[in-house]
C-alpha cells in the first residue's frame, strides 16, 4: 500500500509532478516546427488537484500526453523537464515508460472506449494491469480488481468483472476507466476531459468520485469547463494558445480573474444569475498554432491591448501562489459586475 520509495515528509514538501519549460512541436516540411505547447511550467503536490483549463486547441491534451510519454508522432517534446517524484521522465525509454504508466501515473481519458480494450473483459483489463505492475498471483489480482471496482462505486463489482466495456453504460465505463487508472495506487492521476462526454447527472457522480480519489494522490484535471474546474480543483492553470496565462487558487482566480482572457471566459459563460442579461463574448477566435511567438497571443482579441503587448509577456508572480502573463492585468475586482 504505502509507497516505500519516498519518505513521507518529501511527499508533502516537494511537488509530485513537476513540469518545467515544456515545449511540444510538430515538424513541418516547409519551415520550423509548429509549437503547440510553449514553455509550460506546472506542479502538482500530494493531495492536490490542479485544473488545466482552456478552450479546444489550446494544447491541454498534448500537455497531458507529454506527461504520459504519449505525444503522437510526428509531434515531439522539443524542450523541458517532466519530473515525477523527482525522477526525470522525458529521457525514459519506451520500456521504462511502460513501467511508469498505469503504475506511478494513472490516466483517464474523455472517451472510455478509447482507453479500454473492447475485447477484454473488465476483470481481464484490471487483472492484467495489476499483474504487470505488482508481484501478485491471479487470485490476489482478482481480489484487488474487485476492490478497485468497489472503490469507484460500481454495484455488484464481482459480477461486473465478467462484463465487456461495450456492455456498460457510459457512466459505468468511465468508472471502470477510473478503476483502471487507480488500481495500482498511482502517485499522480491525469484525467483529460473525463466527464465531457457524460450527461449532467452522470457527470456529477463522476466528479464526486474524482474529487475523492484524485485527492488521495495528486491529480491533473483537464477541462474546458470552468464549472467543472470549480467543482473539484484546488488550483487552476488557464492555458491559451499553448501557454499558461494565469494560475492561482481556484476560488481566487474565479472570483477575481487577472488575465483578460480568464475574465473574458467568465463573462462569456452563462450563469444562473445572468437571466435577462446578455453574455459578453470574446471577439474573434483563438489563433492557430505558430512556430514562433512574437506578440501576446491574446492581443488580437483583448480589450486591454496596448503597444507593449507586441512583445509576449512572461508568466510572473503577482501574489503568493498567483501568477499572470499579461502586461496589463485586470484590476483585482470581481469578475462580472451586475451592470450590463
Amino acid at each position, binding site marked *: 500500500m504505502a509507497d516505500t520509495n519516498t519518505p513521507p515528509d518529501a511527499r508533502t514538501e516537494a511537488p509530485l509532478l513537476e513540469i518545467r519549460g515544456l515545449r511540444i512541436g510538430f515538424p513541418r516540411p516547409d519551415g520550423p516546427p509548429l509549437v503547440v505547447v510553449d514553455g509550460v511550467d506546472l506542479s502538482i503536490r500530494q493531495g492536490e488537484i490542479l485544473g488545466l483549463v482552456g478552450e479546444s486547441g489550446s494544447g491541454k491534451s498534448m500537455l497531458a500526453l507529454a506527461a504520459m510519454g504519449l505525444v503522437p508522432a510526428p509531434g515531439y517534446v522539443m524542450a523541458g523537464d517532466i519530473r515525477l517524484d523527482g525522477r526525470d521522465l522525458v529521457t525514459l525509454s519506451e520500456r521504462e515508460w511502460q513501467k511508469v504508466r498505469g503504475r506511478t501515473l494513472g490516466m483517464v481519458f474523455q472517451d472510455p472506449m478509447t482507453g479500454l480494450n473492447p475485447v477484454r473483459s473488465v476483470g481481464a483489463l484490471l487483472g492484467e494491469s495489476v499483474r504487470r505492475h505488482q508481484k501478485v498471483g491471479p487470485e490476489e489480482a482478482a481480489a484487488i480488481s474487485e476492490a478497485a471496482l468497489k472503490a469507484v462505486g460500481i454495484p455488484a463489482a464481482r459480477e461486473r468483472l465478467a462484463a465487456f466495456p461495450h456492455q456498460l453504460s457510459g457512466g459505468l465505463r468511465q468508472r471502470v476507466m477510473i478503476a483502471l487508472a487507480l488500481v495500482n495506487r498511482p502517485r499522480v492521476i491525469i484525467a483529460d476531459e473525463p466527464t465531457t462526454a457524460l450527461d*449532467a447527472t452522470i457527470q*456529477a457522480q463522476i466528479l464526486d468520485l474524482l474529487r475523492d480519489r484524485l485527492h488521495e494522490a495528486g491529480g491533473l484535471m483537464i477541462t474546458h469547463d*470552468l464549472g467543472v474546474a*470549480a*467543482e473539484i480543483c484546488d488550483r487552476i492553470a488557464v492555458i491559451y494558445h499553448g501557454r499558461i496565462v494565469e494560475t492561482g487558487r481556484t476560488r481566487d482566480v474565479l472570483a477575481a480573474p487577472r488575465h483578460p482572457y480568464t475574465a473574458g471566459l*467568465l463573462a462569456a*459563460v452563462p450563469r*444562473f444569475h445572468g437571466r435577462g442579461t446578455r453574455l459578453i463574448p470574446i471577439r474573434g477566435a483563438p489563433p492557430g498554432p505558430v512556430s514562433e511567438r512574437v506578440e501576446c497571443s491574446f492581443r488580437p482579441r483583448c480589450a486591454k491591448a496596448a503597444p507593449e503587448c507586441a512583445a509576449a509577456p512572461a508568466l510572473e508572480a503577482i501574489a503568493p501562489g498567483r501568477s499572470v502573463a499579461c502586461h496589463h492585468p485586470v484590476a483585482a475586482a470581481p469578475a462580472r459586475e451586475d451592470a450590463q
Partner: protein
Amino acid sequence: MTGAAPLLEARDLSVTFATPRGQVHALDGVELSVHRGETVGLVGESGSGKSTLALTLLRAIEPTGGEILFDGQAIGHLGSRALKPVRRRLQMVFQDPYASLDPRMKVGRIVAEPLRAHAYGDRARIAARVAELLEQVGLPADAAGRYPAQFSGGQRQRIAIARAIALEPDMVVADEPVSALDVSIQAQIVNLLQDIQDRLGIAYLVIAHDLPLVHQIADRIVVLYLGRVVEEGPAEQVVARPLHPYTAGLLAATPTVDTAGRPRLMLKGDPPSPINRPDGCPFHPRCPIARDRCRSERPALVAPDAGAARRVACHFPGEVPPPLAAGA
C-alpha cells in the same frame, strides 16, 4: 401567459422506432407549445428524445401518434407538397456545424438554397439577399464565394443561421446550436440568435443541455425524460423552484462557477433505456422520493395548482427542496 393560440403545438405526440432490440419509444405522448416570438428551451439528457422531437416537429420524422399543429393547421401527416408553405415558415439549425453544411457547396449557394426552393426571385435578387444575410450574421461579404471548410465552427454556425433565417421564418428549431462551440464563441452565436429574434420576432425552440444558458435565454423551459415532458413552465420559476425531482436533480448536477462545492442532491444510476421503460413513473428508479404509488401509477402532466402557468408530471411535486435556493 399569452392567451393567443400557440404558433406550434404538439399534442400527445409519439414516435416509436422498430429496432432489432425492440420498440424504441423515443417520444411518448409529448405535449408542447411555442407561441409567436417566444423562446422555449428544451432540456433533457441524451437519449431523452430531444432530437427526435425536433425532427418530428419539422416533419423529417413521421409521428407514430398524436398531432402537430402549426398556426392552427394540423401538419403531422401532410404530404410534402402541402408541407411546402409550412417549411418556409419553420426552419432548423443543427448542432454540428461541420456535418450540417454540404462541403461541396459554396457558402453563397448554401444560403441561397431555401430562397431558390421557394422561388424568392431572380438571380440578382437572390444574390442581394444572400449578401444581406451574410452581413446580418456577421460574415464577410466574400464568404459567399468560399467553401464551409474554410470557416471555423462558429462561422459555420453563422452560415447555418443565415440559411435558416433567409425566408424570415416564424420559427426556428435549433438543436444544440452552440454545444460544439467553445464558450467565447458560443456567446457570440447566442447573442446573434437574440439579435435576430429582436429584429424579426422569430419564435425559437432551443434544445440545449446547458441549463444556465437555457435559463438565460428562454422564456419557458420544457424538461424531457425518457420521451415524456416531466415539467414545463416559465424559465425563472422552473429554475428557482423546480417541481419535478428530475429537474431538481438536473439543476443540482450542473457544475457552475458560482455554485461549486455546495452540497447537492445526487441522482443515482443512469437513465433507463427507452426500450424497457419502467412501470409507473418513468423516473421512479432514480427518484430520491419515490414511493409505492410511483411504481405503479404513471403521473400525468398537469398544472400543480389551478391557474398555474406550470405543469409537472409527478405525484409529489415540489417535495424536493430547490437546489439553487438562496440567491444562486
